[in-house]
């Protein structure tokens, strides 16, 4: 009883290398490398581990511009079986609601030829940070929604049962659920494997399937892209600099001890409440 798993991934700019133009306050994208959203790789690795254990067909799916095919190929090199990119101008400007509509439509189309048992999504992306697309897909497809999973304890493909540890505030819920389900993994649950030589060759040769909205099975264009997005970005701006800069305590010519005494004197005289209640 082999599983069919769809892993959704997003190509994102490597946020640690994003810079803002000091004058125009616009994002400088030139030269910023694109990577697979790191949270998606945690979920992909979990899908690949299920493939190792039970045998599974892992389809990686993404929505984005044509260049996102590179990110999908990267996933093939880790061991995914095939890759589909939904790419179409009608998707431009999608918010999370429109994105989950497009991706869930594509998953339905994928499932029409081969039923889908599990969908994996990243916990969130590093560029949007919303954590909304996974729940959106689960809702639209009627999948059991298992977010913030720190560990998959067991999967029984025959009984179609799954037991997971789900992160909650101050503890972990151990949940028993059923397939089909959607899982988003917590960071730290695993580390993505090294790509094997065979898979790297396979990735280099593979053709990422490119689907436009019709191929993805989307008929309602009003639910795609900007038109299908309830949220509107009104403005993008740089944070205001604070009026009051730090009062500098210079250590030049002073020992560390003297600098610390100067600091503690200021705290004592200007923040008596803090001094009395928060300091020993």
């Amino acid at each position: 009883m082999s599983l069919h798993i769809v892993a959704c991934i997003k190509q994102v700019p490597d946020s640690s290398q994003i810079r803002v133009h000091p004058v125009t306050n616009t994002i400088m994208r030139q030269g910023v490398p694109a990577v697979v959203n790191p949270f998606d790789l945690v979920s992909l690795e979990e899908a690949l581990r299920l493939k190792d254990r039970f045998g599974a067909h892992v389809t990686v799916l993404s929505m984005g511009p044509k260049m996102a095919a590179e990110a999908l190929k990267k996933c093939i090199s880790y061991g995914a079986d095939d890759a589909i990119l939904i790419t179409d101008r009608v998707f431009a400007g999608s918010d999370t609601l429109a994105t989950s509509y497009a991706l869930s439509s594509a998953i339905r189309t994928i499932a029409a030829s081969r039923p889908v048992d599990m969908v994996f999504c990243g916990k969130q992306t590093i560029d949007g940070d919303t954590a909304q697309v996974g729940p959106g897909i689960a809702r639209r497809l009627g999948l059991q929604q298992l977010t913030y999973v720190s560990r998959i304890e067991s999967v029984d493909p025959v009984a179609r049962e799954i037991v997971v540890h789900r992160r909650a505030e101050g503890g972990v819920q151990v949940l028993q659920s059923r397939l089909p389900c959607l899982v988003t993994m917590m960071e730290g649950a695993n580390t993505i494997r090294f790509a094997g030589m065979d898979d790297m060759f396979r990735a280099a040769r593979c053709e990422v399937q490119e689907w436009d909205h019709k191929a993805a099975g989307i008929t309602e264009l009003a639910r795609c892209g900007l038109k299908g997005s309830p949220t509107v970005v009104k403005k993008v701006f740089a944070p205001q600099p604070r009026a009051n800069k730090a009062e500098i305590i210079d250590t030049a010519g002073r020992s560390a001890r003297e600098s610390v005494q100067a600091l503690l004197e200021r705290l004592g005289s200007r923040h008596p409440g803090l001094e009395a209640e928060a300091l020993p």
Partner: protein
Amino acid sequence: MSGEHEAATSTAPAAAAPRRADGADLRGWRGVWVYVELERGRVHPVSWELLGEGRKLADHLGVPLSGIVLGPGGEATRQACAEAIRHGADEVRVACDPVLEHYRTDPYAQALTSLVQRGQPEILLLGATTLGRDLAGAVATTLGTGLTADCTELRIDDETRSLAATRPTFGGTLLCTIHTLEYRPQMATVRPRVMAMPKRDPQRTGAIVEEAVTLAEDDVVTKILSYIQDADAGKAQLAYADVVVAGGRGLGKPENFQLVQELAALLGGEWGGSRPVVQAGWLGADRQIGQTGQTIRPRLYIAAGISGAIQHRVGVEGADVIIAINSDPKAPIMEFATYGVVGDALQILPALTDALRERQALRAAA
């Protein structure tokens, strides 16, 4: 959903098609709702912070503020309702059912969705906790409305009477303001500690309205087998600590976090680190301070060897006093810290710990 495709699965609750509501329809949606996150008998304090913020929005709009409580009923649920009033709600709408004993997506999403459809609020706020984000994502999809995650500022745009929700974007390098103009409710989540805790008024009174929900345990597929309490309770306390000490790249190597922990321990506070040191694997992600980690609001925040990128700044700006220890007087953190000690953190941190320890000994002797 369009009927021409086979559903991937069986029991899909159909998501509503987005509606382009005209002005008349929107006027029917009134009031500000705050979801009060009750779990395992305890309300997450972010709910009170949201009631404080919701109060301002409701007053500006001239509408009531409602707390929404879902739970199993009984004393904890009653207490949650009473406390919601004391933290600023005009009324509480509460749905009690044994199925709602512990959080599970399906019954909670079903209950909250039906309350929203009946009550038609214009704004619905939830905490950006693991529970709140899971629930908000599900409910917004079913309602087909806009949801803005992790807002750092909420206000009303008078021209459109819409919620202007500001959040960091592009990894926290810029801010953006997002509106949901043509759909209701306007949904937003806010992380714990981003908004100030309102003053609790024990005399405050308000109506507690019981809402009927139709739930059956047999319909809920996901079951809870057990709950494992975190051993390290400190991780959960970071956001609410009165004193926080944190380190960054400037500490040079992971072993030097010892200095951060010693000072935090002496001050009875919590400790953490900046995003780069978490990404480098020096600390676990649950110790990360900043927009993508934990937002803190301590009385005293000491940042050693942290440059203070925007994403860090938005996570610590609520601190009363910020002491930055950094060898670079031009580091961005000097723009928003209260005091900047320009020097080597590896010297200053232990000197500060020693000075405080000596003072403690002197006072104990006196």
